[in-house]
């Protein structure tokens, strides 16, 4: 999915401030990060720590006031509006907490749409959507409207949509924030399959259990990186039984 050997996504000194002078807010303050191709990065932290802003900067939905964003070897933070819009369509897949599906379109049509916008033929778009619906386990829901799907199913459609243009990176903002435990587990299993297939993924989450499934966890506090962890193998699950005397 990525050409070249560099990281799929890289940020250097990434900064986003709002306001000025006394009322200056540093939403994201000199954040450095690197996501190697095929890896999953989780960004966690309390609400207001800047994690959603960071994700928007990484995906070109917002512009930094300082620093650089590199996507697949190309610097993207200083691109013009048109180029940025094009990049968002083709190279980045977005997944949101509230799904953001088009209510009047079927599951399949929701997935096809970004492919069509990126210039794929209707037939190619249809084929890709069918393949992705199958991949997310919803082959039999292709003609359903979002309102006819459960939350977990809607999010799986949204993930399929994010994948339709074979993006360099999928950016997910609280992807399980609206879901119950069982649906959350389904989404995490799906993410696991995507990772196994080499998909690069960045997810923002306040849920430690979701973050724990990532290769690397960035904890933000007040816009800066408070901790950067790779969950190491613990003492083994057997040791947990011994916890209780």
């Amino acid at each position, binding site marked *: 999915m990525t050409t070249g050997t560099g990281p799929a996504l890289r940020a250097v000194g990434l900064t986003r401030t709002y306001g000025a002078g006394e009322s200056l807010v540093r939403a994201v303050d000199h954040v450095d990060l690197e996501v190697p191709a095929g890896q999953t990065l989780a960004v966690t932290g*309390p609400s207001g720590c800047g994690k959603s802003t960071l994700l928007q900067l990484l995906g070109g939905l917002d512009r930094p006031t300082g620093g650089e964003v590199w996507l697949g070897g190309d610097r993207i933070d200083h691109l013009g509006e048109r180029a940025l819009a094009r990049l968002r369509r083709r190279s980045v897949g977005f997944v949101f907490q509230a799904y953001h599906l088009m209510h009047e379109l079927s599951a399949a049509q929701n997935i096809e749409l970004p492919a069509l916008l990126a210039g794929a033929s209707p037939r190619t778009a249809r084929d890709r959507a069918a393949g992705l619906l199958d991949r997310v386990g919803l082959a039999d829901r292709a003609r359903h409207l979002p309102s006819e799907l459960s939350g977990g199913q809607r999010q799986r459609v949204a993930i399929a949509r994010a994948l339709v243009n074979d993006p360099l990176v999928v950016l997910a903002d609280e992807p399980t924030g609206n879901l119950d435990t069982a649906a959350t587990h389904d989404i*995490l299993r799906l993410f696991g399959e995507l990772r196994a297939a080499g998909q690069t993924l960045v997810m923002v989450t306040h849920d430690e259990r979701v973050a724990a*499934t990532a290769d690397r966890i960035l904890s933000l506090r007040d816009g800066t990186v408070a901790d950067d962890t790779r*969950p*190491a193998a*613990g003492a083994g699950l057997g040791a947990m039984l011994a*916890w209780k005397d």
Partner: protein
Amino acid sequence: MQDVVLALLVKAPSHGYDLRGRLAAALGPLGDELNPGQVYVTLGRLEKAGLVVQVREDVPVRGPRRRVYGVTEAGLARVGGWLGESAGPRADVAEFHLKLIAAAESGLADPVALVDDRRRELMGALAETQRAVLAYGTGAEPALLLEGVALRLQADLRWLEACGRVWAARTPRGGDA
């Protein structure tokens, strides 16, 4: 108990009455059960083990005489070891709470660093648990057990977040990276 009492004596020698007050202050309502004699028993044991020595006896104007204890070399080594060792996944909330306070009071360890170490440790355990949770279908008996383990780890991690915030605000840290 021994480790905590020992740690509270690192910065300056003190007596049982003072130690009991400091413990009670750190524990709040959880310290209600603290037996008044317990601290003195602990001090006696520490003395027997050569970890503290009586350095003097204070004779207040009013009230009983107070034996003032100080930490020995061996005692200092033990506190250092206690603060440095992993709390272990089964450490309870009060024990780790006291450890952070002891670290700050003794100046032998940075509470924020202890919180960070513990977060990494628990995150590793949670990662492992989540992998197992996802590998089982919902409804399997082991899945139910794993769910409980994961939820406990999550609760501990959320509490650590709060610990990190409070101690980071209290601890002066030199230089910004």
